[in-house]
């Protein structure tokens, strides 16, 4: 930023501190919610192990239940759960025979790559389209783009993905249909990166579609509102060129609600990852969700819910800091 000095830094630190304090009750709430959901899940860990090994006698079932601590009271189970969490232990996956944390960390990178790329594309394209729409507001360019954007906004993402597969992968054969890399090709270095990028393209474009629509509509509305304000009139009367006014004055202010929306949308993005990764067979957290549902692997499912919620909190914190950096009027009371 233009005058990054001690005052700016201390303001950002104050914002960070406020966010961290406010996040604590939310994190506690998520932990309690997760614990309650784990309690209500049908079939406890002992049943699952017994089922996997093809049955158990009454004595061995009782022994298993004792082993998993199922005979303890709810309070004791809760404190066990909390102490496990403190050691970053989210339980064991019966299906994969691996700790849940390992499974999640394995797949997290792929999901973040997909979501990050999609969000970046959606933000850049959305803001540009929104600026264009606001510049031509009311004229045919605006109406045309608005109609296309509205159509994109109304399309279910998974259906868009399926149709994209039909068009680009099946009919035209330009892009691969699924997966994150060509299995068995043994590519390394730049070849591997290019291969992954080719596989990333369709899922990324599909995911970005909806958010592109959201951001462009918001940017258009924000730009139109900001351009009516007095300081823009001042800038214009100062003789600044329209480009400078649009980018340095109007856009910078219009970006603030856009950043709020990014923070609000991250949760929806993670939820949408489930469907998109299933459609494209992308090996990320989302497809792990469906796999664990089909395998009745509830610790994994709830572990993903927990980690996603934490991720949303972190992203909201980052967005808050970004907003405080963008808008010097934001002060901590």
């Amino acid at each position: 930023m233009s005058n990054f000095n001690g005052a700016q830094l201390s303001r950002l630190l104050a914002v960070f501190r406020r966010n961290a304090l406010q996040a604590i009750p939310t994190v506690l709430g998520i932990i309690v919610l997760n614990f309650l959901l784990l309690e209500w899940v049908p079939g406890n860990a002992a049943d699952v192990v017994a089922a996997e090994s093809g049955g158990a006698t009454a004595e061995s079932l009782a022994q298993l239940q004792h082993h998993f601590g199922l005979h303890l009271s709810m309070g004791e189970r809760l404190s066990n759960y909390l102490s496990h969490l403190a050691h970053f232990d989210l339980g064991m996956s019966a299906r994969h025979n691996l700790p849940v944390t390992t499974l999640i960390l394995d797949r997290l990178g792929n999901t973040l790559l997909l979501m990050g790329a999609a969000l970046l594309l959606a933000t850049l394209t959305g803001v540009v389209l929104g600026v264009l729409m606001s510049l031509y507001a009311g004229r045919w360019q605006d109406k045309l783009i608005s109609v296309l954007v509205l159509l994109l906004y109304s399309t279910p993402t998974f259906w868009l993905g399926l149709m994209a597969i039909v068009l680009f992968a099946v009919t035209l054969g330009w892009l691969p249909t699924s997966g994150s890399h060509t299995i068995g090709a043994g590519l390394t270095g730049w070849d591997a990166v290019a291969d992954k990028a080719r596989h990333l393209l369709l899922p990324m474009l599909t995911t970005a579609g909806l958010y592109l629509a959201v951001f462009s509509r918001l940017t258009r509305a924000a730009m139109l509102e900001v351009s009516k304000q007095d300081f823009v009139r001042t800038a214009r009367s100062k003789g600044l060129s329209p480009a400078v006014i649009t980018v340095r004055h109007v856009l910078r202010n219009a970006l603030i609600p856009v950043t709020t929306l990014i923070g609000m949308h991250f949760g929806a993005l993670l939820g949408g990852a489930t469907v998109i990764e299933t459609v494209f067979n992308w090996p990320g957290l989302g497809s792990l969700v469906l796999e664990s549902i089909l395998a009745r692997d509830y610790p994994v499912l709830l572990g993903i819910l927990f980690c996603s919620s934490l991720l949303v909190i972190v992203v909201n914190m980052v967005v808050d800091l970004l907003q405080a950096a963008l808008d010097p009027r934001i002060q901590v009371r």
Partner: protein
Amino acid sequence: MNDAIAQSRTGPLRQNTHLSASARDPGRWRAAWGGFLRDPAALAGLAILLSAVLVAVFAPVLFPGDPQDMVGPALVWPGQDAAFLLGTDSLGRDVAAGLAHGARVSLSVGAVAAVISLTIGILVGASSGYYGGWVDDVLVRFTELVQTVPTFLFVIVIVTIGQPSVCLILLAIGSACWPVTARLVRAEFRSLRESEFVLAARSQGFGNAWVIFREILPNALPPVIVTTSVLVATAILMESALSFLGLGDPNAVSWGSMIGEGREMLRTAWYLSAVPGVAIVLTVLALNLVGDAINDAFNPRLAARA
């Protein structure tokens, strides 16, 4: 997904729409209704919605019998056979029948889930905005908690833990989508509770419940009405995503489940996935057009006909 647009419509860009103090002024609602009727996009949206509702209501008359019955040869393309205008699937089931009966599930889930969300959201937002103090603090924390958990994942977990049925799905969606409404209602109530007509009602001896429901709520409704269409659209999209993944009611045909089943034949019979998807796009588009028009009708200054 869509609920954030609702927030953006009325959040940082919201201007004071309380042109008159009391909602009992019929002029404001009449003006909004008139503006709505003059908008061609709104009328188109309304027409599409009405036809979808009619098809859903008269589905048993138009396509009697179970939509899951095998009635014809398998994998007939749309337009090939006059008896099956939209084709048949891999088991010989009529796509058009599935579409009509699926409309009942999709539309009813959308409507009922939206009503549940609205009810919870209005109750939470009104209490929080009107009473303030510790009630406000607790409810705001609770709203934030529900908003932090990714909505679709939350719905998936609830549906997985219980037995998947249409009832559970609409309860799950309804109990996950209310935070946006609650925040809107809270903001409206906080600004309206200091108004003069509230003071007048209180000084006349009316109790809190009367003031909340008969005085403030009618004035707080315009932004809520705008978000209703977004809520219904979100609920329909969420239900279709659930059914697509195979987590929906196994006994009910819905647009999402048709797309999911058509996915296996994507290379050869892609119309099986395309046709129900077009139905969803048209319905959600209609809801968005109507929602936009309502928004413009209530906020003519924000209509930005620059």
